């Protein structure tokens, strides 16, 4: 995290805010709600409180503005710069300005007002931009979650460095951004996507590209804005050029970066899972046979992509057909005739022909650490 140069801060914990004008993009109550929730993001993790006032001068004045709005930082029309805010202080200090030429939304479409406001209020409180891609204070827009912004530990450390810990007896904690070369790195899910492997962890994906020496770490929402974080299983069906993502008993289908309309759907109707299956641990699809494998606890199911039905005789025990692979698989991906099973920090390379594990690797072996 970074604190604004000179360490400017409010000398009181009970701050006021006012909404000077409203965007026509949203109903007034939605704007009010977005700002209230955005302040709550910070009050939940610090001793600060925020009260909306409509009379008198508030500490933080919020407004929507066009182009040059006489603060020496003109807006640039649609996209580009979305908003800015001033460091704590009197007058314009703490104020947050939003570019009225953006389309402000309350959903995943660009640009979610609650999300941008929470970032700007970080500046209003004295935080500068963080270089942590998972931090709310990262300077570029990346949509995370419709209902709740999950602050990273980096954001919490930043605000608490300025104002001290929360008054809550249970101190809040935030998420941490995965590091490709972390020896303790585990994955939630892995899939191929049009020839490359994408690894999922919490709100993030990791991938190795030829452009940068280290693995790229970014938010899942950058590729698939309407997918939730914490994907539990994923696989590509190359024949159909689709990727399926699973979380709890729901799944989504994406064609490239577009999540198809009508999703999420439940896994019971489409695949025929019994209701006892609450979530999929891992999944992988085999191009040549057209079979998709679903791993749940110590069992697995096999789905026929061509017949669009589950094969008879399943579930079977994983250990019976994949000797050497224990139960509870985190993720699985196929590559050149091998299945790579990920369990904790280990990875088991499984030969489908020989039906045995041929190598045990570290989970992050794909990142040239």
């Amino acid at each position, binding site marked *: 995290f970074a604190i604004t140069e000179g360490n400017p801060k409010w000398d009181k914990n009970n701050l006021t805010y006012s909404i000077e004008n409203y965007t026509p993009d949203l109903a007034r109550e939605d704007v009010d709600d977005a700002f209230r929730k955005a302040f709550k993001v910070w009050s939940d993790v610090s001793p600060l409180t925020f009260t909306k006032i409509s009379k008198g001068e508030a500490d933080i004045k919020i407004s929507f503005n066009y182009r040059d709005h006489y603060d020496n930082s003109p807006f640039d029309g649609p996209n580009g710069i*979305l908003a*800015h805010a001033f460091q704590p202080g009197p007058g314009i200090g703490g104020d947050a300005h939003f570019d009225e030429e953006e389309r402000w939304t309350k959903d995943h479409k660009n640009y979610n007002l609650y999300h941008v406001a929470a*970032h700007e209020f970080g500046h209003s409180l004295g935080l500068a*931009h963080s270089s942590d891609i998972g931090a709310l204070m990262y300077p*570029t827009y990346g949509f995370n979650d419709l209902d709740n912004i999950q602050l990273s530990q980096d954001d919490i450390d930043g605000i608490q460095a300025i104002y001290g810990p929360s008054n809550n007896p249970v101190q809040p904690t935030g998420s941490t951004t995965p590091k490709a070369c972390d020896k303790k790195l585990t994955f939630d899910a892995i899939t191929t996507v049009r020839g490359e492997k994408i690894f999922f962890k919490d709100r993030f994906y990791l991938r190795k590209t030829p*452009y940068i*020496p280290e693995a790229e770490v970014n938010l899942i929402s950058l590729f698939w804005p309407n997918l939730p974080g914490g994907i539990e299983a994923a696989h590509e069906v190359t024949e159909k050029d689709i990727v399926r993502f699973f979380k709890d008993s729901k799944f989504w289908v994406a064609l490239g970066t577009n999540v198809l309309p009508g999703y999420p759907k439940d896994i019971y109707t489409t695949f025929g899972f019994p209701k006892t299956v609450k979530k999929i641990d891992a999944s992988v699809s085999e191009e040549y046979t057209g079979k998709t494998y679903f791993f749940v606890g110590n069992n697995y199911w096999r789905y026929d992509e061509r017949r669009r039905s589950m094969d008879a005789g399943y579930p079977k025990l994983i250990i019976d057909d994949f000797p050497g692979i224990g139960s509870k698989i985190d993720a699985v991906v196929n590559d050149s005739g091998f299945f790579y099973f990920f369990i904790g920090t280990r990875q088991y390379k499984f030969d489908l022909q020989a039906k045995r594990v041929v190598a045990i690797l570290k989970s992050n072996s794909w990142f040239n650490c």
Partner: protein
Amino acid sequence: FPAGLQTKEQDAKIIQKYLEKFYDLKIDEVKNPKNKNSNPVTEKLKEMQEFFGLKVTGKPDAETLKIMKMPRCGVPDVFS
């Protein structure tokens, strides 16, 4: 190839404006660098690439331009 040239000119403008706005690039220093051996644009590009975890080349490669074109907050990443 005029289209390519135009794109390059546009990109150059984007890079200059971006570095001025968010990395405190002083256009006077570009025209009259204090140190003849270092280019202020290259130095600022390196700073920006390091901040965003990109490969630090000091050159405006595709990944760097991609980040520069992303929607973002108007507050600078660095301070004068």
